[in-house]
């Protein structure tokens, strides 16, 4: 699919993407999926089926806190908020990703040659 990154490449990036968008504020599940797609210009569209297990796992690990609140429109939503531990996890993941992507860029594009 042109303009979209294949699913295999996205494996393992859901956590980083979720923590990144939640750094900007509290969101509920569907909003998180939309925000990731919008921020990446449609390049990243994580599987919705992978999103909720990732959210719940991050909550179990203490990286996120969830609470039920009334939304601006529609029914009550389960909002997620990043915690201090989550911010630390985000930094670690971001650094890891930067190292990985730089390495990939060098290997594939020959940037240092």
């Amino acid at each position, binding site marked *: 699919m042109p303009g979209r990154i294949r699913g295999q490449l996205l494996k393992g990036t859901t956590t980083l993407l979720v923590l990144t968008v939640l750094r900007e504020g509290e969101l509920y599940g569907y909003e998180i999926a939309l925000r990731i797609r919008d921020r990446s210009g449609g390049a990243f569209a994580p599987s919705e*089926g992978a999103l*909720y297990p990732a959210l719940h796992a991050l*909550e179990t*690990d203490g990286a996120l806190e969830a609470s039920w609140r009334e939304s601006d429109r529609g*029914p009550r939503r389960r909002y997620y908020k990043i915690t201090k531990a989550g911010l630390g996890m985000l930094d670690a993941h971001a650094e890891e990703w930067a190292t990985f992507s730089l390495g990939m860029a060098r290997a594939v594009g020959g940037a240092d040659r």
Partner: protein
Amino acid sequence: MILAIAILCGVVGLLVGAVALIRRSDRRLGPGPGTPSTPSTPATGGAPDPIAAYLDRMSGELALPAADVAEVRAELADHLQDSIASLEAEGFDRETAIREALGRLGPAAELGRQIRAAHQSTRRLLAGAGGGIFAASGAFVLGYIAGGFMVAGLAVGLAAITAALAAVGLHLPDLIQDPHGIGGNSILIVLATAIAALAATRYAVRTSASLSHRTPQAFAVFWAVAGGLGFGWWALFGLHGYQSWPTVAAELCIPVAAVAGALLRTERPFVRAPRLAIVVGLIAVIVLPLILFAATGVSSVSVSTTGEATSFQMSDLHLDTVAPMAPTKWLPEAEVISGDYTVDYASGATVVSADRLAGPSSSTPDTTLPIQPLLSNWRDIRFEAWHAISIDLPGPGGIDTHYTSPFAVQPATLHGDSLSASFSFQKYRNAGSWWIVLTAVGPDGHRYRLDIGGGDSTSFNGSAWDWLTAPQ
């Protein structure tokens, strides 16, 4: 003093913490928030609602506490609503939008398994195990207090019924048969303990499930086995005191209650009785018996004694049931064998000793004589313990002639100038009232009595296992 305050604070802290944990568990295992957007019934028109069917399949794989399941269902239902609305805005018809939205979430069962795995971490499992032990401790104490009130009400009710039956001439059989009147208390305490055991395992299951994000069924067998073994060991070997068949039966109810507490209805809260029912129950259990006592006048029953001295003959002791008295040619009248017995409270043993004294006709009464010469004339010297007529009844006591042999025999051993032996009457099921006599085989080969002995009564004291393995 400081230690007592520290212990009190510790117990109060335990109870407060346990109650908080139990209430939190009740909330998590309860129905949860839910929303109207989580249908679980077919849509109108009889056709199955694909969203509800999807959520049902997903929920079936969750194996989480009820509140968590409700939360996940509600969250995914909200997600699907948003997704479907968005797809419809893009121009999809309703049916296609639903199919597309469900497809984006992937297979329902797989999603359920992944969400379950996200919830059930090893850390939460350990927290569940620890929390279960903590909640069990608090629930045991609280259950014991509640059980105490319940059995107290039961005791009052039974006493009222007994009194009422006695008033009309019906007397219930004494199943406990405890001469010291502590058997009834033992059973009540044991019943309160059984209620406490039930509460302990029940809340261990619910708290473990809540903290580990698992269903109560996931812990039921574990806590049933642990509770059954733990409380079973305690009931058999740990509870010491007066025993009888009813007491032992009640003690064996403790592990059964523990197993039942872990297995029965743990996914649901206790039935909450209406306040009015509690008040009516208290009146029925406490007030009505008091009225009954007053009406029948049983509360004023007392044992009256005349205080008259009762004269009795030596033959009233029925000592010849044991053996004839030793002939004077082998035990001169000027000498008597005098026995004594004391209870060693550390071991519970009754220590018996006998001395050879210069008798009443001697010029030096009550002088202790060397007992060794007896050993040359007599052999197989032993103390015999016989069932006796209760010394609590009017009369001198003495041998119960329903029996033709002693229930316990101990060889007399020489210690200085005394013969002695030790009996563990507290370990005999039916020792009750007993009478101990010193006997020996004389030169003619016949057994004779060397003294008139003495008696008392003993209640069984030990564990349920001691009772089950005790001699009659």
